């Protein structure tokens, strides 16, 4: 029953209103992005990042489990820095490895914590004794679990003893990071917090270039320039605000909407960023590597000739544009392209040659062999998997793709032939290619590779030794053909034009990267 009388409605009024909204949106300014002005030494830098690492935010190093957070290195600084030629002094000016289980370093003189107390050997011992006291559950990093004792040699010299001969891991990872739970905390601040019945987490104090100001759970972390820092030239901005976003569209909209000035982004964000007039810088990775592993314990890749056939089927050029949208560096070796000891003198013995691949496969009697690719479910991994599937099928394999939210978890339970992996050296090699490694689900064991790898981890090796060790490692990798690389996604940084001085990936919050970043007015 019609209660109220009235004329028939017109849809045109509605559509006109909708079109008007769209016109307003199109005319709307994308927002000031600035750029090109003078350096603003009192400026703020807003960084879009996941401040929870997917789970929770922490500031006290002993609360670290396995989630590195970008602001940690800026809060606590690092003992050493990683420059273009390798390790450089940071909070420590000298370092040595008397044996494979010992690390010694001398601290920089005159450095203070953000509360004015001195950073000395006692403070390091205090910090790392807390890590030991927190127990092995505190961390998943083997090199931190191996902390056995910390000895104060003199006011500025520390000797660290490890329970295993893995001082090489400290050289290759921990000495230039505070993210793995080894940040040096102010004993004064810890004791004061305990005396007041509070947690150190609520007011953390380190010796880094930026001090803690504010933490809003799930929202942001604010750090401010600390005026007593030992290297004022490395503090180009006055304030850093870490705005919580998850990777993908939220980060992209934070940059586009002016909520953040800079963020680590992915290849999937490239088109969106460029459409919004934002700048994207690319950097080949130094430590993060992607690789693919054959399961040599079962058919078809228990046969060397079949593995070689698969390698000849891989055309690396096809991946860079199709999967990575050009934001990748082709790589046919295990280490990342910018790794200091990258074995570029070793030639790849498996160039793209589908004819050779088919021949090898036929001779091995494996034409039509079933192959399962175990890959992540993210768009990038899926794209790579599809290309690989096409290339393998073109030479005679029968390939299926098995996607997983957590491929590492699925390693023991899934009947995979090729596993898509990613990670940083040395953890990756230890876990996946060494006997007993938890990721070595197919029981790969090559004594030659193990020997070469051990040489790469020798902390007393010279640069020439390491060059040779990595070259030998790569030779064995090629000879055994049990693992291979295709391309490494570049580290991508999206930023507004007002942010200048970016020289590398910002994901790790490395102080030597942030030392040159500034904002313009």
């Amino acid at each position, binding site marked *: 029953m019609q*209660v109220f009388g009235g004329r028939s409605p017109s849809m045109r009024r509605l559509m006109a209103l909708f079109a008007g*909204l769209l016109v307003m949106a199109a005319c709307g300014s994308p927002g000031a992005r600035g750029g090109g002005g003078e350096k603003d030494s009192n400026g703020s830098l807003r960084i879009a990042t996941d401040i929870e690492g997917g789970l929770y935010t922490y500031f006290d190093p002993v609360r670290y489990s396995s989630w590195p957070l970008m602001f940690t290195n800026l809060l606590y600084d690092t003992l050493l820095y990683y420059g273009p030629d390798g390790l450089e002094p940071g909070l420590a000016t000298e370092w040595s490895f008397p044996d494979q289980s010992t690390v010694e370093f001398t601290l920089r003189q005159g450095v203070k914590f953000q509360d004015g107390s001195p950073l000395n050997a006692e403070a390091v011992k205090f910090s790392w004794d807390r890590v030991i006291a927190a127990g092995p559950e*505190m961390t998943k990093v083997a090199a931190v679990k191996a902390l056995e004792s910390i000895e104060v040699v003199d006011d500025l010299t520390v000797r660290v003893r490890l329970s295993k001969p893995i001082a090489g891991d400290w050289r290759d990872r921990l000495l230039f990071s505070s993210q793995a739970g080894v940040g040096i905390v102010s004993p004064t601040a810890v004791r004061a917090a305990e005396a007041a019945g509070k947690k150190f987490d609520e007011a953390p104090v380190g010796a880094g270039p930026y001090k803690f100001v504010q933490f809003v759970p*799930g929202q942001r972390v604010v750090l401010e320039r600390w005026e007593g820092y030992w290297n004022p030239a490395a503090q180009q901005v006055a304030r850093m605000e870490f705005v919580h*976003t998850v990777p993908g569209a939220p980060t992209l909209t934070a940059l586009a909407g002016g*909520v953040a000035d800079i963020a680590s982004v992915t290849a999937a964000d490239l088109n969106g960023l460029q459409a919004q007039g934002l700048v994207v810088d690319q950097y080949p990775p130094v430590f993060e590597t992607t690789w693919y592993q054959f399961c040599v314990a079962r058919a078809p890749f228990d046969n060397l000739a079949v593995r070689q056939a698969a390698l000849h089927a891989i055309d690396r050029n096809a991946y860079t544009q199709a999967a990575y949208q050009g934001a990748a560096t082709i790589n046919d070796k295990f280490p990342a392209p910018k790794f200091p000891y990258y074995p570029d003198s070793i030639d790849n013995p498996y160039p793209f040659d589908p004819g050779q691949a088919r021949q090898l496969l036929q001779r091995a009697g494996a034409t039509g062999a079933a192959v399962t690719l175990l890959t992540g479910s993210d768009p990038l991994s899926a794209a790579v998997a599809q290309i690989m599937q096409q290339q393998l099928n073109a030479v005679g394999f029968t390939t299926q793709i098995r996607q997983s939210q957590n491929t590492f978890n699925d390693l023991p339970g*899934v009947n995979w032939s090729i596993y898509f992996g990613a990670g940083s050296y040395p953890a990756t090699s230890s*876990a996946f290619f060494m006997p007993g490694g*938890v990721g070595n689900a197919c029981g790969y064991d090559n004594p030659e590779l193990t020997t070469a790898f051990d040489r790469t981890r020798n902390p007393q090796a010279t640069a020439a030794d390491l060059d040779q060790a990595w070259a030998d490692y790569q030779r064995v990798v090629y000879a055994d053909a049990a693992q291979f690389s295709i391309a490494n996604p570049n580290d991508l940084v999206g930023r507004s034009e007002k942010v200048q001085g970016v020289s590398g990936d910002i994901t790790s919050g490395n102080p030597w990267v942030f030392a040159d970043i500034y904002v313009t007015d």
Partner: protein
Amino acid sequence: MPGFIARRLLAMVPLALIVSFAVFMLMALVPGDPALAIAGQEATPEAIEQVRVQYHLDQPLVVQYLYWLRDAVSLDLGTSRATSQPVLDEIVARWPVTAGLVAASALVAVVIGVPIGVLAGIRPGHLADNSSRLLAGIGLAVPNFVGAIVLVVILGVQLRWLPILGYAKFTESPADWALHMVLPAFTLGSTLAAIMIRQLRAAMIDTLDSNYVRAAWARGGSPKRVIGQHALKNAAMPALTVFGFSIAAMIGGTVIIEQIFSLPGLGPFILSAIVGRDVPVVQAVTLMFVLTQLVVALLVDLAYGWLNPKVRVS
């Protein structure tokens, strides 16, 4: 009434047990080794074995579940296997955000859906009705995450009218909270609003055509009395049912919406837990969601009694 409420609350217990057991078994069916996820890539085989013993992963599944149940009864929801932090602490911190989002979304759905649906039902075939059907169609057809991104781009990025991410506590600043909630709540509530528009429209048309309404008009009743008191109360019953069911969908929808708008709620928390096979977190959060839905269902049943005395429980 108190007896009815008490019986319904008691009935939640076996349901919670069934759901928690089902979730536990589903997680156990996912291929892979949870001990690997907990121990990490750099663990030794001995460390992995230690993890299995510590978290009872070497026990039969039923025994593992009983360990969890024993602790849950004393409100110890366990510690996260990924972070070693108490699960209950995280839920207490995050629950208000998710609950606030669901409440705001429900409010949006009611504020939009009820007036438009009623108006459309009063004037079928007119502009209000045609507009409502267009709106409802869009609301139903467009997935909420697509709508979220479009709204963020237009209203947040281009026009800068609303904040595109972040959260403000209601207790600290209701106005800021509301401002941050507009986009997420509208995104999450739009689908329910669309459903309510269609439900109410159809129910109003049907109800307004009934004999008792004609009688009310014949007795000289005012539009406010006839529509508001007589027609709407009866037309609202099916819409209320749909509303109650949709709360469950909205709770599930918070997982995506909280990710998009960077809201520190339970959504990102349970998402990370599922990927990382963090069973205590998945169990606890799922239980929280289920209990919430049961409470909402109880409230809906009580609301039936208010709307229609004939179904009121004595």
